[in-house]
């Protein structure tokens, strides 16, 4: 009866919840109404209650052991205190990198390596040219001079970045320091008069040698070397420049000898176009408003280096070389005269082909010829420029560049020589083109297709020339003469720019990278 009642109402399912007190009021009331009517539920409630009571007595609550309440608890609290609250998600990765030593080291490596790689790829990491021999400097200067003799473009020339020579750094420091420099004459050991007494000043041997050589050339004395090398009574000493300046202001002899203090220091630094030693009454170099005679380099000091290294040019152009007049009166040399116009080739009776050549040259005057500088990097740039001109049809410029590269003993690749042949062909210089093509064939360094292509162009050009010669023989003879003239003119500077000695050649080649 009771079971039937239980099954029908479903209240028997609530026994467990009732025993453990998990019924809400309504269900509890329902079950309590059901309980008196159901013997089984009554039995279960009683037995479960007994089991629970017995279990509680059998399993009393045990207090945590001493370690758990003592040492382990302290350890746990320490660990809990060590935990840092979670911070922003965005900066979690950078924070991890910074906090982890290995990661931070790796990050530093990546940053530094990346910076080096970027600078390397941009060419800023190129090692500065090492101290070159006097011979190589002279050859480089000759080449620079030859380049400068080319007609100056009407617009600003593209500046070719040139690594500065090592010697420039101390020179620039001296130029900046200005007042700290002290020069008197070009004696190997000389005396400086200062309020603190006289100083015996000597210079290193190398600087002395360079300065002596320069002085011997010009019949003038050279300035002493860097102040760091000044020795006082045989020991290196810090020179009191203020005293020296005060003294120097009074000393006209010293003032007059500062025309190119920074140029002499370090064995060949920058000449800034003149030092106004006499005007200011101070030692050291000051940038003169007068421009350096070297027009192309972006840096005046750099131009001065070139000017310094080109004694032949100095003779030709007084305004350029005189800025480095050691011992002479600076005020007289400072306002360097503007460079005279470059000697233009005589074109009085230029034949028609030569006129064409000149027209083509003037046509591309706005894109000036790159001037290969005295280092390999500039040659590379000039080579690239020449290739570009050759491929874009600007043959005159390309030929000129190739010729300059050849004069400078720069290696010209077979492909570039094919370009050269094409340019010569298109410029009407078939004979020279044929000659160079034969050389290429003999060397067998280019593909047959390239030679055939060049030959084809050459033959076509010759056919056209023959046709023209048939039509107007008198007028057509001129180009052959003209081409020879142009060729001769292109080779004109060659005697003045004799190929450098082997040492120079080796030097330049060693810095060239292909």
């Amino acid at each position, binding site marked *: 009866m009771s079971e039937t009642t239980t099954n029908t109402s479903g209240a028997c399912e609530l026994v*467990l*919840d009732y025993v*453990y007190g*998990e019924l809400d009021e309504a269900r509890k009331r329902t079950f309590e109404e059901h309980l008196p009517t159901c013997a089984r539920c009554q039995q279960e409630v009683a*037995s*479960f209650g*007994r*089991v*629970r*009571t*017995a*279990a*509680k*007595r*059998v*399993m*009393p*609550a*045990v*207090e*945590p*052991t*001493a*370690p*758990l*309440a003592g040492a*382990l*608890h302290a*350890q*746990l*609290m320490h*660990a*809990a*205190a060590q*935990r*840092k*609250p*979670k911070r922003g998600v965005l900066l979690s990765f950078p924070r991890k990198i910074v906090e982890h030593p290995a990661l931070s080291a790796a990050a530093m490596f990546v940053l530094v390596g990346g910076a080096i790689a970027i600078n390397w790829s941009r060419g800023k990491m190129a090692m500065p040219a090492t101290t070159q021999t006097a011979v190589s400097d002279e050859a480089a200067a000759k080449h620079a001079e030859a380049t400068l003799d080319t007609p100056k473009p009407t617009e600003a020339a593209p500046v070719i970045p040139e690594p500065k020579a090592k010697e420039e750094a101390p020179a620039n420091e001296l130029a900046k320091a200005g007042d700290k420099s002290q020069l008197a004459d070009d004696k190997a050991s000389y005396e400086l008069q200062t309020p603190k007494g006289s100083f015996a000043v000597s210079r290193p041997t190398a600087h002395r040698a360079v300065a002596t050589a320069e002085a011997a050339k010009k019949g003038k004395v050279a300035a002493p070397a860097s102040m760091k090398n000044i020795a006082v009574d045989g020991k290196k000493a810090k020179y009191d420049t203020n005293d020296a300046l005060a003294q120097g202001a009074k000393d006209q002899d010293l003032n007059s000898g500062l025309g190119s203090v920074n140029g002499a220091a370090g064995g060949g630094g920058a000449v800034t176009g003149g030092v106004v030693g006499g005007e200011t009454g101070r030692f050291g170099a000051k940038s003169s408003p007068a421009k350096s005679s070297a027009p192309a380099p972006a840096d005046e000091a750099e131009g001065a280096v070139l000017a310094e290294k080109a004694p032949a040019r100095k003779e030709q152009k007084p305004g350029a070389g005189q800025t480095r007049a050691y011992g002479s009166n600076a005020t007289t040399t400072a306002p360097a005269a503007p460079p005279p116009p470059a000697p233009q080739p005589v074109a009085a009776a230029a034949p028609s082909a030569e006129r064409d050549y000149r027209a083509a040259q003037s046509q591309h005057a706005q894109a000036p010829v790159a001037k290969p500088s005295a280092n390999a990097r500039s040659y590379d740039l000039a080579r690239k420029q020449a290739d570009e001109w050759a491929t874009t049809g600007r043959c005159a410029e390309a030929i000129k560049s190739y010729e300059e590269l050849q004069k400078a003993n720069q290696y010209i690749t077979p492909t570039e020589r094919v370009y050269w042949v094409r340019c010569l062909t298109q410029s009407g210089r078939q004979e020279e083109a044929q000659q160079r093509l034969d050389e290429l064939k003999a060397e067998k360094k280019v593909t047959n297709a390239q030679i055939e292509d060049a030959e084809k162009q050459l033959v076509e050009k010759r056919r056209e020339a023959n046709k023209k010669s048939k039509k107007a023989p008198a007028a057509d003879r001129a180009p052959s003469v003209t081409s020879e003239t142009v060729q001769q003119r292109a080779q004109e500077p060659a005697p003045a720019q004799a190929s450098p000695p082997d040492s120079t050649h080796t030097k330049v080649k060693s810095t060239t990278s292909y």
Partner: protein
Amino acid sequence: MRDDSDESLMLRYRDGDVRAFELLVTRHRKALFNFILRFVRDTAAAEDVTQETFLRLVKGADAYERQAKFTTWLYTIARNLCVDAARRGKHRKAASLDAPLGDEDGSASLLDLVPDGAAGVDRQAQSRELAVRLRQAIEALPDEQREIFLLREVADLQFNEIANVIGCPENTVKSRMRYALEKLREALEEYRDLARAVQ
């Protein structure tokens, strides 16, 4: 702070309040240790598991969200660790009921903790026998029933919380609980009279 709920204390600890965590530990350490002790049947193992459970709380504090009851989370961790410890302990010698609770040899055993209710000598003997019998019955319960029995009787979790801890339906929990109680009732059948007397 002492009146705060477990969940708010845990949230405060998540934000860096170590004092809140200490309060939580103090509040739950005893019940947790008892549950673990009954589960793993070894005092040293129970200490380790208890410590490890609280350390897991520390590690997981950042991920704590107020979605479930704190006790559910706590006993879930504890139960999982107990299962692992029980698996490892199967190869060990079974814990003796007469073994002392502490490290000292003279400390009380589990049997000594059973109150005698000021009964006579015979009753004390019967009571001890009842306690042994009941413990044996509890030990003999299948694992799935025993853990539910312990969670309900020792940890005092409700059936729905036990269901969350174990990860099974609430009706299953109740069913297993019923089976466990019935088995224990059968074990106590012989000592029915004595049990009544103890009651």
